[in-house]
């Protein structure tokens, strides 16, 4: 008994002691290195560990999300095929291994949910951002390390809730990641998975919102308050700018998704009718709701949903802008200002365009024109960003290491995706292309693959810093080439079938006009499976290199920012007790020569 109290007291002292340590100075966290496996690797407050935890979570989520897409594509191309593994894992959804139409939609819903939230919002932002941002600004940790730990574990709980939808008997919801009401709001009468599956989904997303808000808060305060001496805002690395702007967009957007989920759950469990009008009949039964508006759900969801796609892409902008100068050996055209202000423009405009998801939704057609104009105008800062990246290549000395290849791939994919936007931003053309595979191709290019390629670029770039070993270049190049060709085969073809009017979210092709498109869909499926297989090259490379890769020097790429001015991996307090003083901006490159941000030497680049 006495022992229990004593250890409880000790634990309390440790816990509160941490707070005491953090209250000194106006920002720096002076905590002692943790001891013990749990403190070091599980319940760590160290931003580097948390960053790695997020990265591993999003890797697992990515393979889960990909597996879902393989099952979907197999079913689309060969509907009669029996998939034994699927039959074992989902006896209700795929009896005998043959996928039911409802299970296809459930897999599709979770594919979108897991990929959009737990991969694309997590990896480039929470994964790399957590590891690199404090180091890049010269801090010892994030502003609120314990809040950071909470953010990760709350995200983890969210992911578990999402996975839980697979193990309940009724399965995951089938309303898509967009979960439109009333399909998502009326409950189990709407179809399989719409009972507890949708409830768990709502909880999972709401939990993810909270984690994201806490994370965004941490990023913002860290950038504003924890920069080391000399790290003026004008000298911030471009990846940090990307994360900083992204954190603001995240803060405002997730703050609206949270109540949206809460209202949805209230409609489902509390009997309210926020989104459910009167007079709805399922199975000849009149539903006990009235007065709600499905369009209200769409407005609330897309007010979050559109900024969300920019939340996904802005870290990618930042990472690519950060990586390019290292491998072209010169600063970006326009310095830090042009690209950063483009990102700010994109982030700001993203809040006033949400109605372009609702052109044919029953919203006033006049509102359609109102939303169309800023949607087209958001093209301008995006085009400026693309022009900066492309024209920075002019006159450069390009080193085609894997991070650079993925960065070039990013630019190409973002151009392709962005061009599709011209068609979808105008209500007149969107009225034909809405809900076709053109849209699916478009958003996979822009927020899916561009962001993933930028994430891969960041992974290959920063792996050595995070783990102290180099990844294999040859495998990296194979990964790039096969992925680059593969993604175009899959998603450019979808743009083309979309022009023919191929409808999205169909579990089978029974319409007269869809039948001739089956060969194209088989091509897409084959390409998708090969693309998926290619990702195992990356996984193998990452795991093998983690254990057996050649030891990494501190600065293998000849880069200039603060993370390269410390060991690989960095010590516990990031800089080994050194006082970091910044003298230069992040893009001091001039061919072979470069000057680190912390160097006292003179500038080399005329930025």
């Amino acid at each position, binding site marked *: 008994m006495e022992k229990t109290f004593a250890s409880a007291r000790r634990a309390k002292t440790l816990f509160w002691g941490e707070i005491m340590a953090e209250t000194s100075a106006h920002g720096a966290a002076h905590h002692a290195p943790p001891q013990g496996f749990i403190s070091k690797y599980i319940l760590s407050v160290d931003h580097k560990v948390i960053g790695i935890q997020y990265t591993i979570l999003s890797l697992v989520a990515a393979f889960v999300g990909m597996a879902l897409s393989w099952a979907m594509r197999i079913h689309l191309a060969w509907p009669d095929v029996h998939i034994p593994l699927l039959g074992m894992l989902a006896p209700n959804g795929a009896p005998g291994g043959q996928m039911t139409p409802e299970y296809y939609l459930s897999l599709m819903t979770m594919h979108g949910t897991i990929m959009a939230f737990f991969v694309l919002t997590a990896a480039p932002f929470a994964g790399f951002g957590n590891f690199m941002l404090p180091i890049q600004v010269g801090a010892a940790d994030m*502003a609120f390390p314990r809040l950071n730990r909470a953010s990760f574990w709350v995200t983890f709980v969210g992911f578990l809730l999402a996975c839980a939808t697979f193990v309940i008997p009724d399965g995951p919801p089938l309303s898509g990641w967009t979960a439109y009401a009333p399909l998502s709001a009326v409950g189990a009468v709407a179809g399989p998975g719409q009972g507890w599956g949708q409830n768990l989904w709502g909880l999972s997303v709401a939990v993810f919102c909270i984690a994201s808000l806490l994370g965004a808060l941490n990023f913002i*305060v860290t950038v504003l308050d924890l920069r080391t001496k000399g790290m003026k805002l004008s000298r911030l690395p471009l990846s940090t700018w990307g994360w900083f702007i992204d954190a603001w967009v995240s803060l405002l957007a997730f703050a609206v998704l949270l109540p949206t989920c809460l209202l949805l759950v209230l409609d489902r469990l509390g009997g309210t009718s926020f989104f459910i009008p009167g007079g709805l009949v399922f199975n000849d039964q009149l539903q006990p709701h009235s007065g709600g508006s499905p369009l209200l759900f769409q*407005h609330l969801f897309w007010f979050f949903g559109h900024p969300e796609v920019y939340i996904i892409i802005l870290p990618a902008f930042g990472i690519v802008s950060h990586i390019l100068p290292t491998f072209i050996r010169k600063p970006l055209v326009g310095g830090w200002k042009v690209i950063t202000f483009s990102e700010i423009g994109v982030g700001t405009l993203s809040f006033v365009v949400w109605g372009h998801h609702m052109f044919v939704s029953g919203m006033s057609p006049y509102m359609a024109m109102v939303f169309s104009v800023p949607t087209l105008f958001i093209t301008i800062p995006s085009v400026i960003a693309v022009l900066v990246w492309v024209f920075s290549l002019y006159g450069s000395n390009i080193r085609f290491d894997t991070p650079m290849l993925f960065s070039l791939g990013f630019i190409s994919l973002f151009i392709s995706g962005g061009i599709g936007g011209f068609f979808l931003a105008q209500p007149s053309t969107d009225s034909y292309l809405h809900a076709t595979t053109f849209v699916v191709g478009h958003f996979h290019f822009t927020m899916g693959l561009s962001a993933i390629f930028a994430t891969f670029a960041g992974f290959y770039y920063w792996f050595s810093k995070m783990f102290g070993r180099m990844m294999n270049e040859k495998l990296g190049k194979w990964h790039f080439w096969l992925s680059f060709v593969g993604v175009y085969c899959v998603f450019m073809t979808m743009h083309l079938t979309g022009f023919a009017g191929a409808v999205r979210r169909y579990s089978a092709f029974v319409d007269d006009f869809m039948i001739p498109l089956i060969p194209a869909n088989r091509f897409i499926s084959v390409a998708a499976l090969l693309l998926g297989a290619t990702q195992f090259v990356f996984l193998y490379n990452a795991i093998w290199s983690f254990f057996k890769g050649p030891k990494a020097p501190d600065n293998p790429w000849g880069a200039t920012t603060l993370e390269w001015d410390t060991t690989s991996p960095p010590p516990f307090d990031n800089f080994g007790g050194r006082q970091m003083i910044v003298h230069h901006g992040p893009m001091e490159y001039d061919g072979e020569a470069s000057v680190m941000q912390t160097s006292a030497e003179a500038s080399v680049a005329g930025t």
Partner: protein
Amino acid sequence: MNQPELTITPSAVVITPGHEVLMEASPYGVDKKKLGMWIFIVSDACTFGAFLFAYGYMRIGTPVWGTPFGFSSIVNGMVMTAVLLSSSLTMLAAVRASQSRAKASANKWLGVTMFLGTVFAALHLREWFKLIGEGWRLFYNPTGGAPQFGATFFSVTGLHLTHVVTGVIALAIIARGYTQGRYDESHVETAGLYWHFVDLVWMFVFPLMYLMNAH
């Protein structure tokens, strides 16, 4: 990869215990706790904003809304408003006292603020139970108007009430830590910021949810 290995820049200054770490000044001149609280407030304002948007959308689109609040409800609401405004004043007194290192005085004012917050919550719950007794639910309007009244009223005021109760608990934790010396005036100030925000939200909720629904 062909780059000769760059060595870590030598630094003449090593951080030793007690040595102040050199940093860039905060652009807003506030410590990180306060900045963090401001950022949280911005996000929370968006959350409340979304709820109020849903309320506005529903109300404007509904022909018969229902106006259940009579004279006694409005008086109750005005008393609640006065209580909450006073609590902001007492919170301000607590912050001023803590800034002058008058620990006992600060604790006293924190206690009064907590008391006023609890009074607010009690009056609020009393209002709720009165409505529930009359038949109002999240999904039911006993006057025959739109059931959305209950849905929006209980969810918006419920969210605000949650913030008040959480605030009272937070103040208790801050007061305890402040007494024990673990927390200083910056913690009290940060808590005060939160409290003022909760009061500000009420200044929107009261007119929109009570006064607009009075008969």
